[in-house]
C-alpha cells in the first residue's frame, strides 16, 4: 500500500462521518412570537432541512459503494470490471484507474485481448485460416459472409473461425453467439448453442416489457427453415405442404402469400391419433403481380427438436410430388420480438431504400411501404389482422442508420384512420407481397455482396464527420431481403439472411426498453398467455416426451444431491391411499395414469377376478382394493370422439419401461410398479387445459389433477361459493380431503403464479374420459367433451388438494 494503514482508516472514518452527518437548522423564525405558527415560513424553513436529508441519503448510499464499477447500474455491470477498466463506462474510467493503482490491482486491460498479429506471424495465421475454410470448398480469401444452403440434401453447419473451431465441433453457434455469451446463460440444445436466460434476474422486467412498456427480443435462428420449390407449378409445392398440415395450407389466402399459416405439423403416415409432430409455420412466396414468377416456393419453419422426423418426411414427399427442397437452416436466420414497442422498434431498424425506377411493381411496392410506415406508432399488435406478413427486398444495412431513430411520418395517423387502413387491408391487394429474394439462394448471396465490415462502416462514419448521417450508396451498398410475420401470439418474427441477423440484432438492442430473452422467457410469456409451450407442454409428441424425461432426470439428480433430512420425503406424503406419492414424483407420470385408467376399465370387466392380481406389495394391494369400490365408469376410450383429442403415442408408452429401469432407487416409493405396465395399456386420450385456482395457492409443475368424486361433489361445490378472500384452509376441518388416485385425471405441465392474471394458474393435460360433458343420456352416441369444469389440483409432496377451474385450450 502506498499510504500507511492508519491514514486510510482515518480517511474512511472521516468519509463516513461526512456522509452520515446531516446539517440542521435550529433557529425557528416561524415561531417568532412564540405563540402562532406562521405556516408559509415554517414550510420554507423545512425546505432546507429536507434537502439536506435527501442529499445525506444519497451520499450515505454511495459511500458504502467503494469502487467505481460498483456505481454502474446493474445492466451495465460486466464480469471483468473489477480488474479491467475497459469494462467500466468511460465516465468512470479515470476514477477506476486511480482506484486500481491505489490498491495495487494488476492492470489487466493490456493483457485482456491477445495482441493483433503483424507481419510474418499474421501471414501464417491467415494461411491457417484459409486452409481451414478450404475444408468447405469455399474460395480462398472469401472469409466474408456466404450462403450455406444445400439443395436436396442436408446443409453442413457453418465452419466458424479457426480460433473458435474447437468450440463448434459438436454444435453450431447462433449468429449472435458472442454477444449472448457475455449476457446470457447458454445451453447446447438441438445442435445449437441456445441462450436459455439472461444472466440478470428478469422475471418481472420480462413480464413488464411484454405487457406494459418495451419489448422482449430473441435470436431464434436455431429454428429449422426449409424452402420447398418447384419451377413449373405451384401444385407440387402445395401437395407437399398440405400433406404435412392436413390440407390446411391449401386455402387461397396462404397460397397467394397474403397470410402465413401457423399450426401443428402432422405426419401423414401415422394414424390420426398420434400424428402430431410439433408447431410449424408455412409461408408461400407471393407471386409477382406481373405473373412472371419463375419459381414457386414456400418457407417451412419448425422446431429443431422435430428435425429428425421432418427431414425424411420432406425428402419423401418432395420426391413423390416432384418438388425440390433447400435446407436453409444455416442460411435464413430469425429474430423474434414481442411487446408494445415491437412495431416501433422494428420500424426503427427496417429502413427502406426507394425502389429502382422502371420496376414494374413500383407503385405496388410503394403502397406496401406506405402501409408499413403508417404502423410506426402502433403499440398493440393485436389490432392488426391475424398472421399478416410484410416482405421487403430493399432494406438498408441497419448499421448505416445507427443509432436507430424512430421515423417521423409527415402526417401521423389517428386511431380512427388506422381502422380504415386495417379494414381495407385486403382490398387493394397490398396485403399480398411480391417475390421475395429471401427465398432464393441468389437473392441471399446478392445481399452479401459488398457487405461492409464494422471497420469499414466506422471509417465511413469518421470520414463523414461528426453529426453527419451515413447515406446509403445505391450503386454499392447491398439491399437486404426480409420477411416480417405477425405470429398468433401477437409477436413478430423477422426472417433475414443468416449473416444479416447480427447487424439487425446490434441495432435492435440499442433501442431503449428492449429486453433480452432466452428460452425461459419464451416459456414464461407463453405461460402468462396460457398457451402451450413446445416442447415442454406437449407430452403427446415425441419431443415433449423426451423433454419431460430429461427434465425429470435432472430433478431426480438434484433431489438426490440434497442431504436426506433436507429433501422432500415423497414416500411419506399422506395421500388418500395411505402414504407415498402417486407415480414418479419427478415427472408427469402419464404411464401411471394410463395404467389407472386401464385397470379401472378392466376392474369393471373382471369385477370378481381382481383378487388374483393383488400382489404382495401392500400399497399395490391398497390400490387394487380401492378399485373394488369403483363407481361405474361407463366411458371406455372408444366412446370418446376422436376430434380435438390428442393421444400419447403408443411407442412412447413402451419406451418408458426402458427409462424406468435405469433408475433403481428405492428411497421414494413409487405407488405403482411401472414394470408391470402391460403391453396392452390402452392409448390415453388427452385434452390440453388451462387451470385457474379458485382460492389460495399456486399450482406447480407435475402437480396432480383429480376430477371431483361424485360422492363428495356437494362438499367441494360448497367451496365454489366461497369468495377467494375467504381463505379455505387445510387447517379448517371442513375442507374436504384430496381424492384417491382413482380420480387422477391428469397432470400440470407448467404451473406458476401468473403475473398477468394475478392468480395461481397452470397449463396441463386432462384425460378426455374425465372431461365428458354431463347430461348426455344416450350412450350409443359419442359423447361431447365439455369446454370447462372444476377439478382438484394437488402439488407433489403436499397432501392438500385445491379446488380449481379448468378450461379447454388449443
Amino acid at each position, binding site marked *: 500500500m502506498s499510504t500507511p494503514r492508519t491514514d486510510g482508516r482515518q480517511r474512511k472514518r472521516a468519509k463516513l462521518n461526512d456522509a452520515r452527518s446531516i446539517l440542521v437548522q435550529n433557529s425557528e423564525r416561524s415561531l417568532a412570537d412564540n405563540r402562532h405558527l406562521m405556516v408559509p415560513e415554517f414550510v420554507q424553513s423545512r425546505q432546507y432541512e429536507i434537502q439536506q436529508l435527501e442529499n445525506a441519503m444519497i451520499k450515505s448510499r454511495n459511500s458504502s459503494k467503494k469502487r467505481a464499477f460498483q456505481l454502474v447500474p446493474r445492466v451495465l455491470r460486466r464480469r471483468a470490471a473489477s480488474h479491467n477498466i475497459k469494462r467500466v463506462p468511460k465516465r468512470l474510467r479515470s476514477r477506476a484507474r486511480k482506484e486500481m493503482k491505489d490498491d495495487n490491482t494488476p492492470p489487466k486491460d493490456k493483457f485482456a485481448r491477445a495482441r493483433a498479429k503483424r507481419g510474418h506471424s499474421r501471414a501464417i495465421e491467415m494461411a491457417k485460416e484459409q486452409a481451414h475454410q478450404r475444408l468447405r470448398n469455399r474460395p480462398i480469401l472469401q472469409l466474408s459472409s456466404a450462403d450455406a444452403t444445400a439443395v436436396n440434401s442436408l446443409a453442413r453447419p457453418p465452419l466458424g473461425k479457426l480460433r473458435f473451431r474447437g468450440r463448434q465441433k459438436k454444435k453450431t453457434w447462433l449468429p449472435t453467439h458472442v454477444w449472448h455469451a457475455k449476457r446470457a446463460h447458454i445451453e447446447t440444445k438441438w445442435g445449437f448453442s441456445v441462450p436459455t436466460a439472461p444472466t440478470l434476474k428478469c422475471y418481472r422486467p420480462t413480464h413488464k416489457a411484454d405487457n406494459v412498456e418495451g419489448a422482449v427480443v430473441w435470436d431464434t435462428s436455431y429454428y429449422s427453415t426449409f424452402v420447398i420449390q418447384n419451377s413449373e407449378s405451384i401444385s407440387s409445392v402445395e401437395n407437399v405442404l398440405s400433406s404435412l398440415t392436413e390440407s390446411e395450407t391449401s386455402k387461397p*389466402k396462404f397460397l397467394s402469400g397474403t397470410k402465413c399459416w401457423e399450426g401443428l405439423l402432422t405426419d401423414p403416415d401415422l394414424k390420426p391419433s398420434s400424428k402430431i409432430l410439433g408447431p410449424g409455420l408455412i409461408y408461400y412466396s407471393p407471386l409477382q403481380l406481373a405473373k412472371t414468377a419463375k419459381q414457386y416456393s414456400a418457407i417451412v419453419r419448425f422446431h429443431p427438436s422435430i428435425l429428425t422426423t421432418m427431414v425424411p418426411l420432406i425428402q419423401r414427399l418432395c420426391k413423390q410430388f416432384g418438388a425440390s427442397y433447400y435446407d436453409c437452416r444455416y442460411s435464413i436466420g430469425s429474430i423474434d420480438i414481442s411487446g408494445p414497442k415491437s412495431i416501433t422498434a422494428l420500424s426503427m431498424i427496417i429502413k427502406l431504400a426507394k425502389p429502382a425506377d422502371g420496376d414494374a411493381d413500383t407503385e405496388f411496392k410503394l403502397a406496401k411501404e406506405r402501409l408499413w410506415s403508417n404502423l410506426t*406508432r402502433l*403499440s398493440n399488435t*393485436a*389490432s392488426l389482422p391475424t398472421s399478416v406478413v410484410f416482405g421487403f427486398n430493399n432494406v438498408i444495412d441497419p448499421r448505416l442508420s445507427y443509432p436507430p431513430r424512430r421515423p417521423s411520418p409527415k402526417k401521423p395517423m389517428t*386511431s380512427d384512420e388506422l381502422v*380504415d387502413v*386495417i379494414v381495407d387491408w385486403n*382490398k387493394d391487394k397490398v396485403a399480398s407481397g411480391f417475390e421475395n429474394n429471401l427465398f432464393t439462394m441468389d437473392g441471399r448471396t446478392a445481399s452479401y455482396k459488398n457487405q461492409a465490415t464494422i471497420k469499414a462502416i466506422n471509417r465511413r462514419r469518421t470520414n463523414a464527420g461528426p453529426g453527419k448521417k451515413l447515406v446509403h450508396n445505391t450503386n454499392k451498398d447491398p439491399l437486404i431481403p426480409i420477411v416480417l410475420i405477425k405470429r398468433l401470439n401477437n409477436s413478430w418474427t423477422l426472417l433475414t439472411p443468416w449473416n444479416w441477423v447480427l447487424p439487425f440484432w446490434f441495432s435492435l438492442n440499442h433501442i431503449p426498453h428492449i429486453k433480452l430473452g432466452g428460452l425461459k422467457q419464451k416459456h414464461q410469456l407463453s405461460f402468462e398467455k396460457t398457451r402451450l409451450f413446445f416442447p415442454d407442454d406437449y407430452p403427446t409428441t415425441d419431443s415433449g416426451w423426451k423433454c419431460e424425461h430429461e427434465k425429470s432426470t435432472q430433478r431426480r439428480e438434484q433431489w438426490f444431491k440434497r442431504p436426506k433430512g433436507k429433501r422432500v420425503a415423497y414416500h411419506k406424503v399422506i395421500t388418500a391411499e395411505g402414504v407415498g406419492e402417486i407415480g414418479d414424483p419427478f415427472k408427469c407420470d402419464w404411464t401411471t395414469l394410463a395404467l389407472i385408467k386401464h385397470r379401472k376399465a378392466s376392474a369393471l370387466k373382471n369385477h370378481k377376478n381382481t383378487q388374483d392380481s393383488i400382489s404382495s406389495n401392500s400399497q399395490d394391494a391398497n390400490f387394487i382394493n380401492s378399485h373394488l369400490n369403483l363407481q361405474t365408469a361407463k366411458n371406455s376410450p372408444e366412446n370418446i370422439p376422436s376430434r380435438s383429442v390428442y393421444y400419447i403415442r403408443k411407442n412412447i408408452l413402451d419406451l418408458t419401461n426402458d427409462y424406468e429401469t435405469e433408475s433403481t432407487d428405492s428411497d421414494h416409493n413409487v405407488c405403482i410398479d411401472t414394470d408391470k405396465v402391460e403391453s396392452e395399456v390402452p392409448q390415453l386420450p388427452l385434452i390440453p387445459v388451462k387451470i385457474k385456482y379458485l382460492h389460495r395457492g399456486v399450482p406447480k409443475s407435475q402437480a396432480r389433477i383429480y376430477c371431483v368424486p361424485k360422492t363428495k361433489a356437494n362438499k367441494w361445490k360448497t367451496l365454489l361459493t366461497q369468495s377467494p378472500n375467504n381463505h379455505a384452509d387445510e387447517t379448517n376441518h371442513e375442507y374436504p380431503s384430496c381424492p384417491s388416485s382413482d380420480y387422477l385425471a391428469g397432470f400440470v405441465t407448467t404451473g406458476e403464479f401468473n403475473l398477468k392474471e394475478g392468480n395461481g394458474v397452470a397449463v396441463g393435460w386432462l384425460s378426455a374420459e374425465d372431461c365428458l360433458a354431463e347430461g348426455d343420456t344416450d350412450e350409443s352416441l359419442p359423447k361431447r367433451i365439455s369446454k370447462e369444469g372444476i377439478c382438484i389440483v394437488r402439488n407433489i409432496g403436499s397432501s392438500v388438494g385445491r379446488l380449481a377451474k379448468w378450461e379447454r385450450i388449443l
Partner: protein
Amino acid sequence: MPASNRQARPSTAPRARGRINGKLIKHPPPQLGQRPKDTIQIGSSTPFISGLKRVQKQLKVCTRPFLTVQGLGKSIEKVLALGVKLMELDHVVEVRTSTLRVVDEFTEIINDECRNDVDNDDTEIMRAREVSKVELRVYV
C-alpha cells in the same frame, strides 16, 4: 355532461350489415404510442375494487388537474359504478361519452349471403364496428 367540445366526426352511418356465418376474431382498437400514465383503462375482467384502488393511488401522484378512467362496451357499467363510488368519496367526477371504432375479422366463412356488399373475393372479411366508450374525469 359537457358535450359541447365533441368534435364533428365524419359520417358514421352504419353500412348495410348482413350476418356473416364464420369465425369472428375481434380486434382491439389500434393504440398509438404508449398509454399515458394518468389514463386508467378498465376492462371487463378488471375487478371493481382493483380499479378503485388504482384510481385512488394514481390520484395521489397525479400532476395534471384530472385523471382519466375509461372503459369500452361491456365495462361501461363498471366505469360508471366506479364514478358513482368516487363521487361518494367526495371527488369531482365528470362523465364523457364517445364512440370508438374497432375491427372485426371474419374467417372460415360458410355462407355467401353478404359477400356481395364486400367487393373482394377473399375468404376473409374485415369490418369496422363501433363501440361506445365512457370516460371519467376525476379531478384531483
